[in-house]
């Protein structure tokens, strides 16, 4: 039934849709920024050690961004991302250093604990119907306490050198932790875009009522999302434990905002139903570029913050101006559907005057 012609039209429509998406913008920003930094550092930035350092610290932001994204996709927020990660990291550190537990078991225990905490959070939300925001905030508080209990104010570092080796290992200057994060992102993408369970998750996020009417238990999806989010945080904690000089109560303290920023800049909505695995990864890249630039140009953090803010605000306003411009041009050809009615970009084939019958 599908003629080549149609196929072509479909692909081009898909391409056009993609070219206007957030992901493309991010891709351009990432590549452009990376090149610019490389040139500014007269090529040093492209060399092995720099690449390695750059990628090394991408693992955590990618993973926590994904963890938050999973929660966002069913319309929930997970405020406990940082606390859970820190607590899990400390748990693993303490198990290994003080408890003498072998690294694999400690890691497994840590990941399982994180997952379990996610599960319990989800079940609690579903059972009590208290706003997920409040519940995860409560869980966050509890976990912060637990983390302090575990680690106190010391830095636990006497744990498995093998694990630390792995955390630092970087075959061909690509750190293992980064590869782990990428692999997790890949798996998650397959799960969310292809697996039945993943689709159910998205359906429940996109329109809970419709999902319920189609026999999908939204409650179960919420529990699943939190469990998955916990699992991802657990993995993030493992990468952190492996690559940090030691774990202490400050680990995870700075995860909360980046965990939201990555998916939301990557194009995920707060209201649920949308995911952007690639976008989230790219957004983490962009944020990491800023760190690198800060080191490269010896910028004062206050200036960096100020400039980041201004640049983002400028981009937002500028991007909008550009889009309006595009729209005007597009509409002159009678192609783009109106934006104000809140519609996504449409394949132009739907418009009546798009040419050529068969």
């Amino acid at each position, binding site marked *: 039934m599908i003629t080549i012609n149609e196929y072509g039209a479909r692909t081009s429509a898909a391409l056009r849709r993609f070219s206007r998406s957030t992901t493309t913008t991010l891709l351009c920003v990432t590549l452009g920024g990376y090149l610019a930094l490389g040139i500014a550092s007269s090529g040093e930035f492209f060399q092995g050690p720099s690449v390695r350092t750059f990628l090394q610290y991408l693992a955590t932001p990618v993973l926590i961004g994904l963890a938050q994204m999973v929660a966002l996709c069913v319309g929930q927020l997970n405020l406990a991302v940082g606390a859970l990660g820190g607590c899990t990291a400390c748990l693993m550190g303490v198990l290994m250093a003080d408890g003498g537990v072998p690294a694999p078991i400690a890691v497994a225990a840590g990941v399982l604990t994180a997952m379990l905490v996610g599960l319990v959070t989800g079940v609690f939300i579903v059972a009590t119907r208290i706003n997920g925001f409040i*519940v995860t905030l409560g869980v966050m508080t*509890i976990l912060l306490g637990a983390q302090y209990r575990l680690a106190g104010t010391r830095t636990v570092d006497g744990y498995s050198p093998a694990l630390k080796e792995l955390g630092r290992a970087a075959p061909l200057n690509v750190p293992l932790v980064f590869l782990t994060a990428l692999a997790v992102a890949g798996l998650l993408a397959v799960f969310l875009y292809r697996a039945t369970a993943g689709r159910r998750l998205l359906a429940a996020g996109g329109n809970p009522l419709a999902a319920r009417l189609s026999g999908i238990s939204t409650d179960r999806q919420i529990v699943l999302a939190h469990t998955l989010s916990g699992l991802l945080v657990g993995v993030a904690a493992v990468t952190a434990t492996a690559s940090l000089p030691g774990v202490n109560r400050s680990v995870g303290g700075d995860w909360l905002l980046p965990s939201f920023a990555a998916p*939301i800049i990557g194009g995920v909505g707060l209201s649920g139903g949308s995911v952007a695995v690639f976008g989230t990864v790219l957004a983490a890249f962009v944020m990491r570029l800023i760190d690198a630039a800060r080191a490269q140009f010896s910028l004062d953090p206050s200036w960096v913050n100020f400039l980041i803010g201004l640049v983002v605000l400028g981009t937002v306003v500028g991007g909008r101006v550009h889009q309006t411009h595009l729209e005007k041009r597009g509409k002159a050809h009678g192609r783009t559907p109106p934006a104000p009615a809140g519609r996504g970009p449409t394949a132009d084939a739907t418009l009546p005057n798009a040419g050529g019958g068969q």
Partner: protein
Amino acid sequence: MRTPVTAPEHVAGEAAGAQRPPRRLPFWVDQRLGLLVLTVALAALFGVLRPAFLDQRLVLFPLLREISTLTVVALAQLAVLSVGHMNLAVGRMAAFGALFAGLGYDRLHLPLQLGLLVCLFAGAVIGGLTGWIIARTGVSSFVVTLAMDFALMGLVSLLYSALTENAAFTTRPSGLLDLRSASLADICVGRVCGSPAVPQMAQFTVLALVGLGFLYTRTRMGRELLLTGANPKAAELSGIPTGRRVILAHSLSGLLAALAGFMAAVSTGTFRASIGDDFMLPSFLGAVLGGTLLTGGVVCVVGALLGTSLVAVIRKGLDLLGVGLESLNIYLGCVLLLALSADRVRAVVSYRKVVRST
């Protein structure tokens, strides 16, 4: 009414005549009441465990002062939540406002009230600017306020570094210290004086509560804000200037944040850059606990006070019980979640009762 329509009489008659039970759920189902009961019950419990809890000067006064500040913070968030937005820059807007007050006192030797006005004005302007960007570009408020947070974080610390030696304005206009420590006991009508437990700073909170309460329940603006939050598309089609309402909500948020910044500065003594660092989570917690929806359209102004109070009371109680940091957060989270679950049970039971009585 222009046209006398043949009213479908019997329906009208039935609606008026047949004594249906009132649609409004009875007052004891109300979430706000639940919060109030919880707060009072916990306060009583702590009072029994540690009679010092009822020490007006040493316990209640600082407690109420903290509640006053944080309630205003929560109200600042509530203002944007009403249109379905978020303000991640509450803390920084507070610092920004306080900066101007401090500058006014330090360099221009403004009187206390004038400085406050400058502070509020600065907050409203920066909030309005944020709102304007959001309204014009249609970019998610999360992203815009996050960028604004960065920009202000940088700007505020740059300005403090440039203008002061210790990153703080230490000049205090006359009246500031009085405001800090004055309570109702200093106000006497004849021989009757107020309670020493109630700080005079609460006047700002009361004003903000009354003002916002009036706005949201009594005025056209408030209703339009809520409808904008409930369904922006429908609001636009119903002739509500949604763009302007978004700007209004954000500038209101900026104004309240600045007020909170001023109050925080007064209660600690100087205007410094770190004001507002810890405002973000309490702002959401207070508002959301109090029954304001993150999705917009529903706000509860008194709820912000009650939600904030509940958390502050739990914290104070635990402090008084001498709970150390290793347990404080764990208990805080647990007590909060348990208390809320108990309230949920109450709500479900009473809802069932209403249904049964129908």
